């Protein structure tokens, strides 16, 4: 499984939140988690992970409950160009389309975007190094200081985790 292409673009004063185990979001699935008072949807689309705030910039609908579909375009009636590789998240309310790669609205100006979050796959042992653990090498349920925060997810060194980056 590959990390998000946005992994390199993390803001400096952001924090990381462990939100799920990788196997909690199989290919084609999604989950919606609450992190720091925000609902965030995490999608596994053909092995790549994407995360968005669960709030459509149009009228506040639960964007992450929408359909993911390929791009349909046309230059003239009777012609249809279908690009299943170019994925759009379609809001379950009014049907606005957002590019899954960066949240850009398909139709609106550049400043209308679904709010994306970088999401990475991190091995548990990397996370665990930052964890104050009750017993060495084991699982911890405490809130973790340092760059990683996991509100509800126990972290094990044998597993891989989905980690999103947010300004806190």
């Amino acid at each position, binding site marked *: 499984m590959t990390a998000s292409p946005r992994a390199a673009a993390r803001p400096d004063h952001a924090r990381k939140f462990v939100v799920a185990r990788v196997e909690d979001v199989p290919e084609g699935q999604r989950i919606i988690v609450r992190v720091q008072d925000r609902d965030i949807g995490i999608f596994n689309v053909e092995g790549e992970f994407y995360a968005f705030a669960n709030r459509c910039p149009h009228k506040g609908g639960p964007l992450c409950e929408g359909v993911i*579909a390929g791009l*349909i*375009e*046309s*230059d*003239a*009636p*009777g*012609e*249809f160009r279908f690009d299943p590789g170019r994925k759009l998240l379609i*809001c379950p309310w*009014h*049907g*606005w*389309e957002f590019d899954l790669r960066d949240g850009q609205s*398909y*139709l*609106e100006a550049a400043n209308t975007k679904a709010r994306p979050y970088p999401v990475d796959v991190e091995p548990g042992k990397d996370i665990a190094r930052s964890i104050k653990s009750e017993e060495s090498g084991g699982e911890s349920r405490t809130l973790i200081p340092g760059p990683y925060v996991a509100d509800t997810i126990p972290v094990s060194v044998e597993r891989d985790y989905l980690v999103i980056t947010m300004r806190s």
Partner: protein
Amino acid sequence: MSREATSPVLAEAIRGAWSGPIIDCDVHANVPSLETLFPYLDSVWVQFTRERGYTGPLRLASTYPPNLASTCRPEWRPGDRRVPASELALLQEHVLDPLQVERAILTCYYALDSLRHPDWAAAFVRALNDWLVAEWLDKDPRLAASLVVPARYPQDMVREIERVGDHPGFVQVLMPVRSDRLYGNRIWHPVYEAMVRHNLVMGIHWGGTAEASPGPAGWPTWYVEEYAAEVQAYGAQVTSLIAEGVFKVFPELRVSILEIGFAWLPSWLFRMDKEWKGLRREIPWVTRPPSEIIREHMRFSVTPLDAGPISDLANVIEWLGSDELLMFATDYPHFHDDDLSVLLNATPQHMHAKLMSENARAWYRL
């Protein structure tokens, strides 16, 4: 209080409000009688008509009932028994000369769309166009005109456009607002291809014969009831042209929306733009907001104006989002209780000359 006593003589009122150039983009010729067209018909059709005792399209009388006030302004009813607007001399006396028009676009709606026999209807269409050329266009260089086409068969429509479309006087093809298939439908493409090739504007105009009821709520009973609500007939055609991507296929096609005014339009623009954002995937060839497409491809005659308070009308004009959309018209000889000074007061100063002549001059390439 009778209307005759209160309605001003229109030409005077217009010239009182505006002294600059005028192009009148919607004036009408009425056929005086069916026999008027006989000289322009092949003899077989004269015979065909006579042996049936046919006296002309009945539909005309229900589209513009002769005795109703809206059909003719009082000062334009000939004092004798002549049909209003049935002679060039009347048009000259009533509109062209007093308004000192630079040009006027003549449309003859004769309800030939009500006649079903394809060949007989097409013959009358040819005769009508030939009559317009001989008795109107050739006799007054100020006139340009819409040519008439058979209503129902694209190949017949193309044939007539090919036959007369290059006459320099014809600048537009009359397409009645009611049709049996919405004008966005792909079956009409050959007609639009011919229009574009001959540099003709599509003029969507009052009238038409269709199988459906005059409105989606069923059959009305009063004339004014049907008349007032006709906005929806035009709106449906505009929506169809957009949804079906006609302007994608024919990027040079120009459409004039005639005899329904424009105050209703912004509401439709707002709605279409909003809907499109969520429903784009069904009509993916619509790649930009419908309002932008309309601004580029459509123009609107301003009569009937149906104005509200001036400041509200001013907002409507601003919401149109372009100063190129509106074109002055008298809609001679029809009677509307409009006041040009209201329109001018609601329009920014810089737009007056555009509205009164420049937009039409550019649009019809006069």
